[in-house]
């Protein structure tokens, strides 16, 4: 018994990133408790600084091959480490953009903001490297429960409360549905470990039903179309920094986990979930695009845009190959910089003027040329216009799907790219061409968000040309 316990504790040796994050979490919590009223300013630097250190230390972790701990409960590999590092970068960028909001409007609760955000990040870590449905479920809920508290952060704001109510109720419902699926999987396969489920999966009707329930639950988290109804309202009502976090990190982590579970647990009968996913992708991309056209609020607009982007991410999942995994992670990586650049500009302008409508952005180029320029880059990259990073990520993900013979699907996705170009250019048109009587006055950004926007801009401009990143991802990815 003692020997097995020693094995058990040796499992912590490969959980470097999680343990670092837990240390940062406890440090931020204690700092928030004991720094007091005067130390609020230092608290921000403590939180951002310690988390930046954790981010840097994450890049030193490397395993070579696949590793597992706690009898296969926790699985990690270089790919998992890379995904966690990507999540770290995104969270750090969100902290940069949220700095101004935390300094002024949200001054009294900034400690809670950092603590809750890092808690959700810990949940995503566990979810990403789970090897068992129990750890997966705990990670998922650790990611989504504090997220609801974050969405409700503006306590006096009606929209925030409404968005949070919608988010928590749909999240709880979807995890209930998913749990029912998992319980049926357990009943029919006799285990909760992904690899044992894969061995016992015979394509029985009850197992297919269970898989559909499971996919429905994940669809809620990634906001694929039949399950997307909460997305727009939640994105609009939540504080802008939280919306940015929700749209990139939550979606990216859930998409990668979904991919891992489909590859590991359901790889014996790929045609079943590929058929379901085919229809989901078509509907997701189309509905997301069509609804995005008529939005007047920029946060709502980006919500529908992110729904259609989730559809594109699923193109990499459906192929089921190592190339699919590479292109999915690459897509998430590029999408992070692109979407965060857009949200950075929006949160800057919203913090200082309170305007988020599309019409308010008329004539932005005249007063804030730099912001208009970065927003244009982000929109071009989201639409997939060639020299920018978004083009390369879209290209690779189409290539991954086409490699598996999904030509019709790629064709539909390409058609939708043209529709999406139309509405992304609407924003550009508003900023550069439309005239306005009272445009947004020239705003002065704070240093933190300038750093963040700079990183995002560099990412959009040159990431597509740095081929070692893609080659590194190819070397560590794995298929079904």
């Amino acid at each position, binding site marked *: *018994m*003692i020997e097995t*316990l020693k094995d*058990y*504790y040796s499992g912590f040796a490969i959980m470097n990133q999680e343990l670092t994050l837990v240390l940062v979490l*406890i440090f931020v*919590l204690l700092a928030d*408790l004991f720094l007091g009223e005067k130390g609020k300013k230092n608290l921000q630097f403590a939180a951002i600084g310690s988390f930046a250190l954790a981010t840097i230390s994450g890049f030193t972790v490397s395993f070579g091959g696949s590793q597992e701990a706690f009898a296969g409960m926790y699985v990690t590999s270089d790919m998992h480490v890379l995904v966690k590092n990507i999540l770290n970068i995104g969270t750090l960028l969100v902290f940069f953009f949220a700095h101004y909001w935390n300094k002024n409007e949200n001054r009294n609760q900034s400690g809670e903001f950092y603590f809750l955000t890092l808690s959700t990040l810990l949940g995503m870590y566990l979810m990403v490297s789970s090897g068992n449905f129990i750890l997966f479920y705990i990670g998922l809920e650790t990611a989504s429960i504090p997220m609801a508290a974050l969405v409700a952060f503006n306590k006096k704001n009606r929209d925030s409360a409404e968005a949070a109510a919608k988010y928590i109720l749909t999240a709880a419902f979807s995890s209930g549905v998913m749990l029912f699926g998992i319980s049926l999987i357990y009943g029919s396969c006799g285990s909760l470990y992904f690899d044992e489920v894969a061995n016992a999966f015979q394509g029985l009707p009850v197992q297919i039903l269970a898989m559909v329930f499971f996919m429905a639950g994940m669809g809620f988290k990634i906001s694929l179309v039949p399950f997307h109804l909460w997305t727009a309202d939640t994105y609009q009502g939540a504080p802008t920094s939280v919306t940015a976090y929700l749209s990139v990190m939550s979606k990216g982590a859930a998409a990668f986990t979904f991919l891992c579970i489909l590859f590991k647990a359901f790889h014996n009968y790929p045609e079943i979930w590929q058929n379901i996913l085919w229809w989901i992708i078509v509907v997701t991309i189309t509905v997301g695009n069509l609804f995005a056209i008529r939005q007047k609020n920029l946060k709502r607009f980006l919500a529908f845009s992110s729904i259609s982007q989730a559809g594109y991410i699923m193109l990499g999942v459906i192929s089921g190959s190592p190339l699919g995994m590479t292109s999915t992670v690459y897509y998430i990586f590029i999408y992070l910089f692109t979407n965060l650049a857009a949200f950075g500009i929006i949160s800057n302008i919203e913090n200082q003027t309170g305007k988020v409508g599309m019409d308010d952005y008329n004539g932005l180029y005249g007063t804030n040329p730099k912001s208009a320029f970065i927003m244009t880059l982000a929109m071009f990259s989201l639409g997939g216009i060639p020299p920018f990073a978004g083009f390369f990520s879209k290209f690779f993900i189409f290539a991954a799907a086409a490699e598996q013979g999904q030509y019709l699907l790629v064709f539909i996705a390409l058609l939708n790219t043209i529709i999406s170009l139309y509405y992304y250019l609407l924003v550009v048109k508003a900023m550069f061409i439309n005239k306005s009587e009272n445009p947004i006055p020239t705003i002065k950004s704070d240093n933190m968000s300038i750093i963040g926007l700079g990183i995002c801009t560099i990412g959009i401009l040159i990431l597509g040309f740095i081929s070692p990143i893609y080659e590194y991802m190819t070397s560590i990815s794995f298929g079904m």
Partner: protein
Amino acid sequence: MSSGEIFIVVFITAIILVSAALVIAMLISPRSTNEQKGEPYECGIPTRGTSWMQFKIGYYLFAILFLMFDVETVLLFPWAVIMKSLGVMGLCSVLFFLFILVLGLAYAWKKGALEWK
């Protein structure tokens, strides 16, 4: 008699006895009604205000805190069952778990959630 017959006899007897007691009481008891009798009883003193009162919203914080700490201790049961065979290392795990819980309580305390306002 078999057990089924005993059950039926006991069941019928019970119904007859109870309903007989109620019917006899209804027939022979004296009746009087006045306004005071319809009021809710509150230790002898006439009730003031409405008895349909709302609880202070401040209670919910205590309810939530209680709920959390009450349910989280469920996790101690699986450990308690095999405590001896797990030994010191199992104890360390549980102590860390309790440390996290205490951290939560300290947080609530410091933020003033336990103060009665």
